[in-house]
């Protein structure tokens, strides 16, 4: 046995060691979080008072930040469940980051409270249904028609054509019923709480069972718990899939009045998967960089390549899902759906779309295709950071173009500040959870050791 291997076997983590290892980034994250929230408030206040942004934009910025960070907890339920069902070394390496991600779910609920507030903000809300009253759309339609006629006269007089008019056809969608039956503030808020309870229940079951499986002094009880992990994982996947469909519909898709795409929850899932996995990878790479003996020896370049290939797969899937949705909506050209992409291909958003295609697909694809990129911890770390940034731009893209920004404004500074604000606090909480348990499951270390030492 080599010296490194002997060290790995003999090394035992202490809680003090873990806390010391993680306390530095934890403090930094908290400071960044506080600075982010301060910046969010200052920039928001300044822009609103200067008339460069409105209160809605303030809410949007928070929603973007919230959705990005909470998707890490959701994504971890998926990965942990998949690991329990299918096995594999990647899941052993990723277990602690995923468990720590899951334990931030309750914190996510605290961050969700302002979103509930947005649902009850009436006409000021970013959710159109929050201030919708039955019969309103008929009145609005009549008014809209008058407005359209006026605009048409104006355009004819000016000899110009504005694309926005294309998005006001007579739709066969019953908005009143939609709001009465589903998208009303009370029901949506109650559902939101239920999602947290259901997902939280699944996470609690998985985490408590994992504790028994690893630490139970009774060998038989531990064996039963390990067998139960497969079932817990299966239930976790089913709950994750259903909740993802509802959450992405309620919190994101419902921002658009008529947009309904069955692919959208899948796109949200894939983004969450990339965010979660990249975050887990960054954790592992950090521990390796800090020369934690387990990660130095049991997370060699070959394992980095395997884990990096998973990121490549999710990046490819992102492209596949997004292209399919875009192409089908573009070619269908239906009045209910096409406004979603019309808004995202005009007023400068078309350049944003091109940039996203380049940096969310071509660049990571070309980088993650090569083994030497995946096997170099420094390069891989930058790829993961890059992916987190482009995933943020994706969340931004789902939400911001829905709202027309008449004047040039630096409103997006609020989104970035909120992202840092929520993110800093979230990472601080996450690292605190990570420090609570050994950074690799000691019971299964032998699998990694056996593989990496060629036995």
């Amino acid at each position: 046995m080599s010296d490194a291997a002997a060290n790995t076997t003999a090394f035992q983590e202490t809680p003090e060691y873990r806390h010391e290892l993680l306390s530095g980034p934890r403090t930094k994250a908290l400071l960044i979080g506080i600075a982010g929230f301060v910046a969010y408030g200052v920039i928001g206040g300044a822009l609103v008072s200067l008339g460069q942004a409105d209160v809605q934009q303030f809410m949007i910025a928070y929603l973007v930040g919230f959705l990005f960070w909470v998707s890490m907890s959701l994504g971890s339920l998926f990965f942990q469940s998949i690991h329990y069902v299918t096995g594999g070394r990647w899941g052993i390496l990723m277990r602690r980051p995923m468990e720590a991600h899951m334990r931030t779910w309750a914190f996510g609920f605290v961050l969700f409270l302002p979103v509930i507030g947005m649902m009850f903000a009436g006409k000021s809300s970013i959710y159109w249904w929050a201030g919708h009253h039955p019969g309103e759309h008929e009145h609005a339609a009549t008014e809209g028609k008058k407005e359209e006629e006026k605009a048409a006269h104006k355009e004819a007089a000016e000899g110009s054509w504005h694309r926005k008019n294309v998005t006001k056809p007579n739709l066969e969608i019953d908005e009143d019923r939609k709001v009465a039956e589903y998208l009303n503030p009370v029901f949506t808020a109650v559902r939101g709480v239920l999602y947290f309870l259901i997902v939280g229940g699944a996470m609690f079951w998985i985490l408590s069972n994992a504790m028994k499986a690893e630490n139970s002094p009774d060998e038989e009880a531990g064996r039963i718990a390990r067998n139960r992990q497969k079932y817990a994982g299966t239930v976790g996947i089913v709950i994750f899939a259903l909740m993802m469909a509802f959450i992405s519909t309620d919190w994101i898709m419902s921002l658009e009045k008529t947009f309904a795409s069955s692919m959208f929850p899948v796109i949200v899932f894939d983004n969450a998967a990339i965010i979660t996995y990249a975050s887990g990878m960054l954790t592992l790479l950090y521990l390796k960089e800090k020369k934690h003996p387990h990660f130095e020896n049991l997370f060699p370049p070959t394992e980095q390549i395997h884990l990096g290939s998973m990121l490549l797969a999710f990046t490819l899937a992102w492209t596949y899902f997004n292209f399919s949705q875009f192409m089908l909506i573009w070619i269908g050209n239906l009045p209910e759906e096409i406004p979603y992409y019309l808004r995202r291909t005009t007023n400068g958003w078309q350049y944003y779309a091109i940039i996203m295609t380049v940096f969310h697909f071509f660049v990571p694809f070309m980088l993650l295709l090569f083994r030497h990129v995946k096997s170099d911890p420094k390069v891989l770390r930058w790829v993961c950071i890059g992916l987190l940034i482009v995933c943020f731009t994706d969340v931004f893209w789902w939400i911001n173009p829905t709202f027309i920004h008449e004047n040039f404004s630096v409103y997006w500074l609020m989104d970035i500040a909120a992202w840092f604000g929520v993110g800093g606090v979230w990472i601080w909480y996450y690292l605190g959870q990570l420090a609570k348990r050994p950074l690799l499951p000691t019971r299964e270390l032998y699998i990694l050791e056996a593989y990496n030492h060629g036995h």
Partner: protein
Amino acid sequence: MATGVLAHDGHHSSAPPHVEPLPVAIGGQHSMGSVCDAIGDIATCVKPHPKNWYIVFGIGFTLAAGFLVAVTYLLTYGTGVWGINVPTAWGFAIINFVWWIGIGHAGTLISAILLLLHQRWRTSINRFAEAMTIFAVMCAGVFPLLHMGRPWLAYWLFPFPNNFAMYPQFRSPLAWDVFAVTTYGTVSVIFWYVGLIPDFGVLRDSAPTKIQRWAYGMLSLGWRGSAYHWRRYEKVYLILAGISTPLVFSVHSIVSFDFAVSIVPLWHATIFPPFFVIGAIFSGFAMVLFLALPLRKWYGLEDFITDWHIDNCAKVMLGTGMLVSYGYFCEVWMAWYSHSLYEADTTWQRLFGPYGWSYWTLIFCNFIAPQVLWYRPWRLNPYILFVVCVIVLIGMWFERYVIVITLTREYMPSMWGRYAPTVWDWLLYIGTFGIFFTFFMLFVRYVPMISITEMRELLPKSAGGQDGHSIAEGPP
């Protein structure tokens, strides 16, 4: 900085790990020679073929004759002999096309994607799964070709220089289908054949008759098994796996576009591409097991197609079945959420309209029936598994039937109609089973249905060694 502490005895203080035995990839006590004999002797007919081979081949050949009758009648009288009408203008032709092409996907997934994912268990089932793919694509291709009405003009679908002022409409997914399916068929054949070359070399050297030695010699393309040959072979095989992998997704995505680019309610669903791909893998694995279970029993191949393989295939089927069911949920959920008049009403018609029975049949077949696979002893019971596979194959046919039949109840009631296949629809469909089983049985008879060389590569692990460790010739 505080550091961790080293245990004095140099060992973990945690509880001893619970080590499960590795699954069995090759059963029995096999050597390099016995693997060759057990598989090669079937192809060279040293081992007599079981009675069931003749029965299946006989039935297949009879049905293939029925296929020829159906095609002849169709070409004589035109597509009016089918039950197609307006609004259901595609009818059985597209149902059967999608069903067959979907079945082929499991073969490519097993061969290419599982190879890239280093899944050892693919080795004993990839060969006949690839053959299944090729024959399934052949059967699939028949339907759009005949549905054209004038199949002799099929070459007009290709963009070739001509003086008719004819050019394919590249905005039509039907034109995309032409490229997708022909590419898929071509790559599948090349991939399959390249994988066969070393095995043909083995059979050339071991076949008992002169004709067989000559035929396998020709087919092995001068294979000598030298290091150079192996190096090139491994490289080409990996490249072909890389090319085939995107095809698993692209082909059925493009097939789904046939429906999804339209604006028909419930056809225009953005989730269709991945939903179709998963459905294809689901039905493909059902067909793999449908073929594998009898084959391993008739030819005594339990040492090569072990319970591990069967269990894994069943698990894939269960997983993909759940994903397909998620797709059914998403369709209904999104139709309700959108509160779109036409989406909601067409969904209602699909569930409770005159063809509602077909929807609930597919729910039973694709969602409820596969639930028995949660229980491991049932997954390993060949009879239960076989019945589930048949149910899934029927269910996946109904899935396409339900999609196509949507046309009978879309938009305005004045557009509504009904659809009933005629005897010629059925004969053509059943006839393709004849084509499939005739070719498949001939494949089983003359080609090694399990890769000899790849099974030999697995031997060191099965004999207790690891990659790169040699084992002695002869039973250990």
